[in-house]
């Protein structure tokens, strides 16, 4: 029994918070399509049509073509490496029993709360010593290690829940653990795997601190880093800055809107203790 008034209030509150959530996003969009000479950072509709050339200018003047390329490369490798390594490890944690498995698993879980700030300082000196700073490796390897904490945790939950009967049946058919994993469990686990993939993709794409520390030459900058430097140089040019922001946010937002259920599941699931 809910009254009409109560329903109105409920929708009113939801709408209010939806507007609050969207306002800064719409503001960036409006500014991105605005005139470059305009100093107005407010939220008026763009005057004189949409200025698509802002994106072209941000692309060329801000070198965002290069940065997007770097981000795509780094993110693709991190996501692929995390997926394969996490699936292998979580499979063992989830369906096999061997001494020390609990301790080893908790070692991975610790990584969920360990802040980057407690790693970044020695990592910088180690990678510099190894001659790897200002290379893609310096962006890929630490990020893969950090994503593994979530990946192993998340995939282990899947393997634990996946039907024992299926595994037993495969084994009775003489399948090795390896074939069982790739022929049976991985195809069955596509939803769980795609959640891990989109979460890792988002974290890697948005990652900033590691990139800031590890990369000093422009050729290896990723997009968030590019935006930070761009802001330093063009802080008065609101339109270009906003256009660059849109270019960076767009890939993640598109994937998010298409797969929002997977995103939310993964981000909330990552912190749920058993």
């Amino acid at each position: 029994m809910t009254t009409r008034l109560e329903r109105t209030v409920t929708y009113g509150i939801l709408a209010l918070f939806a507007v609050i959530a969207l306002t800064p996003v719409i503001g960036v969009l409006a500014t991105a399509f605005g005139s470059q000479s305009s100093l107005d950072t407010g939220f008026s509709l763009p005057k004189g049509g949409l200025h698509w050339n802002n994106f072209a200018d941000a692309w060329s003047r801000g070198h965002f073509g290069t940065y997007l390329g770097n981000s795509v490369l780094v993110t693709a490798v991190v996501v692929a490496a995390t997926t394969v390594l996490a699936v292998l490890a979580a499979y063992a944690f989830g369906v096999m029993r061997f001494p020390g498995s609990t301790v080893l698993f908790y070692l991975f879980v610790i990584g969920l709360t360990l802040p980057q700030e407690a790693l970044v300082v020695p990592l910088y000196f180690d990678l510099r010593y190894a001659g790897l700073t200002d290379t893609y490796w310096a962006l890929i390897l630490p990020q893969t290690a950090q994503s593994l904490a979530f990946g192993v945790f998340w995939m282990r939950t899947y393997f634990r829940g996946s039907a024992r009967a299926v595994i037993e049946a495969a084994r009775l058919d003489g399948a090795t653990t390896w074939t069982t994993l790739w022929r049976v469990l991985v195809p069955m686990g596509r939803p769980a795997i795609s959640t891990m993939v989109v979460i890792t993709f988002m974290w890697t794409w948005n990652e900033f601190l590691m990139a800031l520390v590890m990369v000093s030459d422009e050729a290896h900058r990723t997009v968030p880093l590019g935006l930070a430097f761009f802001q330093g140089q063009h802080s008065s040019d609101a339109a270009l800055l906003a256009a660059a922001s849109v270019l960076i946010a767009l890939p993640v937002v598109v994937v998010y809107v298409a797969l929002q259920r997977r995103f939310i599941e993964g981000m909330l699931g990552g912190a749920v203790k058993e």
Partner: protein
Amino acid sequence: MRLTAPTRAYRRRAPGEPRAIGYLYILPALAVYAVFLLYPFGQSVWLSFVHWDGLTVATPAGFDNYRALFSDPSLRAPFLHALLLLVFYSALPVAIGLLLAAVMSRARVRGMTFFRTVLFLPQVLALIVVGVAWRSILAPDGLLNDLLRAVGLGGLARPWLGDYTWALPAVGVVGTWVGTGLCMVLFLAGAQRIPRELYEAARMDGAGPLREFRAVTLPGLRPQIAVALTLTIVAGLRNFDLIYITTSGGPGNATSVPAYEVYHRAFETNQVGSAAAVGVALTVLIFVLTVAAARLVEGRRA
């Protein structure tokens, strides 16, 4: 059948496969994880006990770097800022989320997918992009000041991020904006799982909306509250991107936080040992607060 069950658990492998097969599956992940996460963390602990400028030979520091966290105001302040920011980053989002869940728990809502997608959106944007967007909102001629002037409160307008008193709360509000959607979505999902009968029973007993919230909604959402607190506390204390892009710790060090201090000390002022100590202390703080949050929420169960 019964008797063989425990032994079968140890033999989830086809005949002929090595006994240690489990370790082989874990090895690749563990290698990357150990070399690029566990080992550097160990090194951080070691570095926190030395004085080092990043170039010359490190000298032992004992507990100097840790003592300084309490005695040096420029190190104490970032930790105090971080704790104050948790009000904005964690307490407020949870409180607002609960308020909304309380309102929504009684009615089924149409268009839930739309609202959920929109409310959660701030979570998926890069914090650098969030920072750029909010910098322009909080700028001297930005949206917030425009609004204040429009409603005749122009006297309150100020350069929010450049104001010694207001910069920290201003950054906090951005954190509230990021975290609130997460908490809401989490609580809304939880509230929809609370059996309707509980509300009907409460109403039969003559419970008002407040009693109903305390007796039905709040207990029903306990696991979600624990998750929300954990997520927002960890995210709030890890917060580097937002500070770097909006204020760089300024004006003065009014918005400096531990995460920023680690970067600043290690890579801008060559105090590597001190930076490592801040990083380790931050880790301990995150650990203690998340355990405390879980205890707090679970403790009431009795």
